[in-house]
């Protein structure tokens, strides 16, 4: 069966005039063709103009709460398993991304729960002590009044194949009333467009202020137009992609990059008794299996403390068992030759170490997971992804900050299982070397609403503050009709 799905959301452009480029995705014995929008130069300009104008005319005047309602309703539709778009998502995303159906279904639900009304209010409260600044001038603590304005045109350049990941930045932009254009990632080109359609259905005026399109990155064409028109560019990708993109963004445009990251986990000896170790290993396995470690928050290395009743090597075997058990319920994505080669290269590097007794490889190369046990404290390094992970035995978890410190630029999430005192002590040291998020094992791949992605503010980084200083307010009094 072959399905053709139109991607994107293009208000103001007649559908029949839009060129399309069809990309085929195959997995699980099915094929989905995705027709990506491929705009001409003049259409790109028109789209930017349309979104900017409508944002200025209507979005600016909307109360934030109205936007919250629209996002809440769109999320509710996608959370409703009977809704046609939710059914479509469950049918098509496994084929497009290659993840198994259960992974997609559970992942969508867990992720979309982040965008309901209470969570959206948390987003706002997290960044603004008084979210009213988004709707009008509010008294400032230092005196005078302040108001926050999002960019007229916010451009998102999305990347990656984790389903629905673009919604995070999409929602953030809408909450600060930014006219929004998103560029789809070829690896997951559907959810953002569906979400935009749902917003447009719920609130047609808001739907006009939001577009989702595609262009071939780095290939010239309309990319330059979009980059030149935007007031702010939020971009996701590897360092090379981001460097190239930044070079093309005008210096007066705000550029907010989110590069690739590496996650890791730490397990303290007090968590390693025979009752807890198995459970922890299962939770860690879930973090590794969910989206095949493609997300920046997934662990690629586990530091396990010696001295507990369960030794690191035993924990590694628990983990291998956990991965093997999950593999039957959530089969691994089919790997392309490059991905298989990455795992093979990672495994063979450890195989060489194993010859000197420094490493132990668990399982067979043909297993859909790989665990390597490293006996000596080893610096942080990436795994081969797609369910490959290194377990590093350390004498004390306090040694870990030094082992990860050299890779400050890539640090983001750590999963920690430790007693409160240890947790806070480690958190201090990890924060000092650049880590920005600590989660429980099993929750690494599900950041909570209002998360400060890469240590930044989801909303605050987008806005510009306008201040009425106390002097102006006081001076104005002098010109009032009621002035004495």
């Amino acid at each position, binding site marked *: 069966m072959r399905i053709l799905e139109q991607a994107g959301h293009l208000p103001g452009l007649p559908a029949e005039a839009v060129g399309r480029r069809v990309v085929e995705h195959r997995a699980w014995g099915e094929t989905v063709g995705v027709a990506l929008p491929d705009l001409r130069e003049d259409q790109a300009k028109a789209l930017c103009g349309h979104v900017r104008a409508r944002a200025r005319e209507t979005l600016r005047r909307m109360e934030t709460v109205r936007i919250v309602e629209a996002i809440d309703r769109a999320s509710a539709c996608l959370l409703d398993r009977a809704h046609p778009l939710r059914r479509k998502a469950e049918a098509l995303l496994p084929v497009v991304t290659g993840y198994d159906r259960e992974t997609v279904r559970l992942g969508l639900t867990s992720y979309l729960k982040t965008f309901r009304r209470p969570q959206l209010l948390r987003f706002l409260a997290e960044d603004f002590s008084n979210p009213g600044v988004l709707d009008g001038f509010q008294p400032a603590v230092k005196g005078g009044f302040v108001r926050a304005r999002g960019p007229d045109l916010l451009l998102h350049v999305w990347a990656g194949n984790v389903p629905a990941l673009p919604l995070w930045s999409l929602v953030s932009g809408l909450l600060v009333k930014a006219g929004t254009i998103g560029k789809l990632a070829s690896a997951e080109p559907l959810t953002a467009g569906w979400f935009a359609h749902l917003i447009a259905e719920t609130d047609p005026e808001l739907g006009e202020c939001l577009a989702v399109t595609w262009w071939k990155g780095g290939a010239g064409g309309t990319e330059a137009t979009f980059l030149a028109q935007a007031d702010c560019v939020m971009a996701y990708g590897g360092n090379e992609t981001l460097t190239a993109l930044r070079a093309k963004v005008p210096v007066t445009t705000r550029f907010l990059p989110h590069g690739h990251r590496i996650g890791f986990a730490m397990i303290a000896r007090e968590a390693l008794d025979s009752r807890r170790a198995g459970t922890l290993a299962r939770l860690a396995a879930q973090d590794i299996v969910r989206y095949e470690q493609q997300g920046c928050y997934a662990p690629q290395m586990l530091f396990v403390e010696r001295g507990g009743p369960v030794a690191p090597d035993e924990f590694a075997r628990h983990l291998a068992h956990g991965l093997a058990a999950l593999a039957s319920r959530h089969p691994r994505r089919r790997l392309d030759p490059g991905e298989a080669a*990455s795992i093979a290269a990672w495994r063979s590097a450890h195989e060489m170490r194993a010859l000197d007794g420094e490493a132990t490889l668990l399982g067979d190369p043909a297993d859909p997971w790989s665990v390597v046990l490293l006996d000596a404290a080893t610096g942080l*390094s990436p795994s081969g*992804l797609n369910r490959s992970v290194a377990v590093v035995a350390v004498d004390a978890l306090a040694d870990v900050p030094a082992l990860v410190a050299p890779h400050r630029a890539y640090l983001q999430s750590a999963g920690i299982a430790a007693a409160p005192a240890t947790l806070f002590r480690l958190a201090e040291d990890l924060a000092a070397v650049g880590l920005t998020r600590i989660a429980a094992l099993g929750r690494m791949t599900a950041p909570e609403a209002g998360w400060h992605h890469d240590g930044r503010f989801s909303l605050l980084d987008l806005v510009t503050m306008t201040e009425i200083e106390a002097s102006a307010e006081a001076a104005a009094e002098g010109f009032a009709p009621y002035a004495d």
Partner: protein
Amino acid sequence: MISAGLAVARDGREVAVMSQAEIVEALLDFIGRPSATEAEFEALALRLFAYQFAHNAPYRRFAQQRGRTPLTVRRWRDIPAVPIKAFKDLTLSCCPPDEAERVFMTSGTTGSGRGRSYHPTLAVYDRSMLAGFAARIMRGRQTIRMGILFPDEAALPHSSLAHYLALAKDHFGTEDSAVFVGPGGLALDALLTFLAEAEAAGEPLALLGATYAFVPVMDALAERGRRFALPAGSFLFDTGGFKGQSREIEPDAFYDGLSAAFGVPRSECLNMYGMTELSTQFYDDGNAVCPPVKSGPHWIRSRVVDPLTGQDLPEGETGVLVHHDLAHFNSVSAILTEDAGVIAPGGFRLLGRVEGAASRGCSVAVAEFLAAAQG
């Protein structure tokens, strides 16, 4: 000198371990017999595996880890192939390394460290090279005037390619053959004179060198608006790719460029695919169509495998190339390359390096991480 021995399998089967002298003798004989059968290849491959297993300790541990020993392996395809990265990390040699007559090292352009191949004698390497070159490059002709675009052996004593090209020039080059890469780099003017002489004399000429060495020559010719029309019977020979030494050019554009610059048809642009970790080379029969089918002589076999499991892939599927080179007797005969390939009638098509995939999500992948660490 490594002496002969005997190991006995549990089923009473004897696995003979040959001495180095016996191995060398057997290989020289095998190379000289193009009529050797598949069964003879297999028998020699298994004897070589027993030899390498007995005398090459890291390889023995590697094989044991995979549950492969001379007593369990019955087919050459089951002899475990070592990833070529191992040549950087381990000393893979049956003879004590300091007793090697020559050590060839990789250029070290990819990643850290240089892979090493130890040769207790060059007799087998040389015989292998000369037989392959005569059959596939000289194709019946005795000698040809050669211009070499690569430093000589004195400049690069650890380069297998420098030795290879020296053998080519000494055995198949005419007296007036010359090397055009010296301490000062490419001797462009001397090369152009050399080419012009050949053009004027109507005498066929062969230009041999690293792939990247042809790029500045083509650029210089384009800049000067100069084109050669080398006499019929001339050929060009490139090997090794660009290795970051020149700009990368797509194969079709590269051979179009060569053909236009030197007036040699693409069918006479021959490419050699070799490695420091091998003692035998692969050739194509010209690059009229890219990628051409490459093949080697009867003492080397290639497989295309799934890099993860090492299992053979069905014909037509793209995977990673494994080469089994009997002539690479002192080190390891079976290597898992980092080259992508697909089996084709008469050989295989080489599809470039297997790049580790960049992460498709937002996780950092090894390639990007290493690039940042080195940059």
